[in-house]
């Protein structure tokens, strides 16, 4: 499936300045692999040593935090994926 990833400004030095990136992936795990392979400098910021999404990285699919989605959630064509480093607020 083709999905669009919104890249926050803090990540753009690792993505050749791109603020959006169209990727083909079936699910979140695949998407993180695609992003990591395409942008090697971004790779260590996506997953920790155990392969889990980093504690301070928030990922949303169409406004929904991925932690609320089914573990085997499969992307639909045109899904919007947003990366937010270190959520603030409170």
């Amino acid at each position: 499936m083709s999905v669009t990833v919104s890249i926050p400004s803090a990540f753009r030095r690792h993505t050749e300045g791109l603020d959006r990136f169209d990727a083909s992936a079936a699910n979140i795990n695949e998407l993180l692999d695609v992003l990591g392979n395409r942008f090697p400098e971004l790779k260590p910021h996506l997953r920790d040593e155990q392969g889990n999404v980093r504690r301070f990285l928030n990922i949303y699919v169409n406004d929904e935090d991925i932690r609320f989605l089914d573990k085997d959630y499969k992307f639909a064509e045109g899904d919007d994926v947003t990366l937010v480093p270190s959520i603030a607020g409170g």
Partner: protein
Amino acid sequence: MSNQASTKPKPTQFYELRCRECHTPWGNQPISFCQKCFAPLEVVYDWASIKPLISRDEIARRGTTLWRYKELLPLPDEYDASLPVGFTPLVKAANLGDALPGGSARNKSLYLKNDASCFPTLSFKDRVVAVALAQARNFGFEVVSCSSTGNLANAVAAQAARGGFKACVFIPSDLESAKVLGTEVYGAQIVRIAGNYDHVNRLCSQIADKHRWGFVNVNLRPYYAEGSKTVGYEIAEQLGWRLPDNVVVPMAGGSLITKIYKAFKELVELGLVEAKNVKFFGAQATGCSPISTAVKAGRNEIQPQKPATIARSLAIGNPADGFYAARTIASTGGWAEDASDPEIVDGIALLAETEGIFTETAGGVTVASARKLYAQGRIKPEETTVLCITGNGLKTTDALVGRYEASEPIAPKLAALEEYLEQKLVGVYEAFGEARAGARGGVL
């Protein structure tokens, strides 16, 4: 150039931002997370330089506001300390102590830190905003903003009005009307978002990423959060420069509990209080309890929740400092509890009926959770315990709808009153009758 000009005091900023995880220093700038590893930032201080500047006597000579701890806060050299924020009462709560499990008030040492009376907008958020706006001016922001569950919007709007900032605040669409009105009245622009606080918060992170606005709890957050430390400084000073055994703190984003912990640690480091192993207890609403759930499960990692509670000021399902709050609680030997909506309302009523303090839903959460902690024996009656009451009940009267019935009016005649008392208030009538007889006896 004259000698006098060259001897002008140099700026004295003994603080800077540092990453909480990789410890990279970032100087002073409006950013909230590490540009290297993307973990949150916090303010660190040069205590060796600060220590000679502050003492108990020096603090005692200063005005009773949070500015009395100015060296311990990340304030620019030029800031407006004229707003009398903070230094709220620490109230001995003998009646509440009597009503809580674990024995009578006689052997309880229970206190309330009452920020329901904080100036100017009746919540502890006045503290954090005071510090954040000092830095907003320092960094040259003209527009200040926030994502808010209500109290923060009130504080930003009020202090922005006084400070000459434009304010634009973002709130979930279901906030209590008093909190919305209490923002609009100051002339702030309100943007209501169709979603919960976590939706609002994420949007604000994206706006702050794109526009040069001073979001107090996004790009100014490391400075803003330091304002919460003043709750801890005040508790220690008001207890006679000693630390309590326990504190019970409501948790939304989880920042306040970590900052009170930080405040106590700093006071020890500065030699202003003796070291003590204070236990930190967190309180959440059952309908939004990501932190207390983690604590009860023995982990620090937070699983976000979708909030469903009347305690809207605590309704943050993805708490920014949840991990650090859970870690603080566990590392101090504390615990976390949560309260259902009916328990929250009972907590509000109990505090009002015993201590004459009307708190908002967050305070109801704190009181209800404290009741459980006493009942479980996690808090011992003889230990000095402080409950943090962080907001005012006049802002969340919606939560009490249905609990109190409006009485029928009666004619302005003594006979009508006598009849009313006989019918409706038998116990009061008897007491009234006894008092009346007693008074008569006294006269005769």
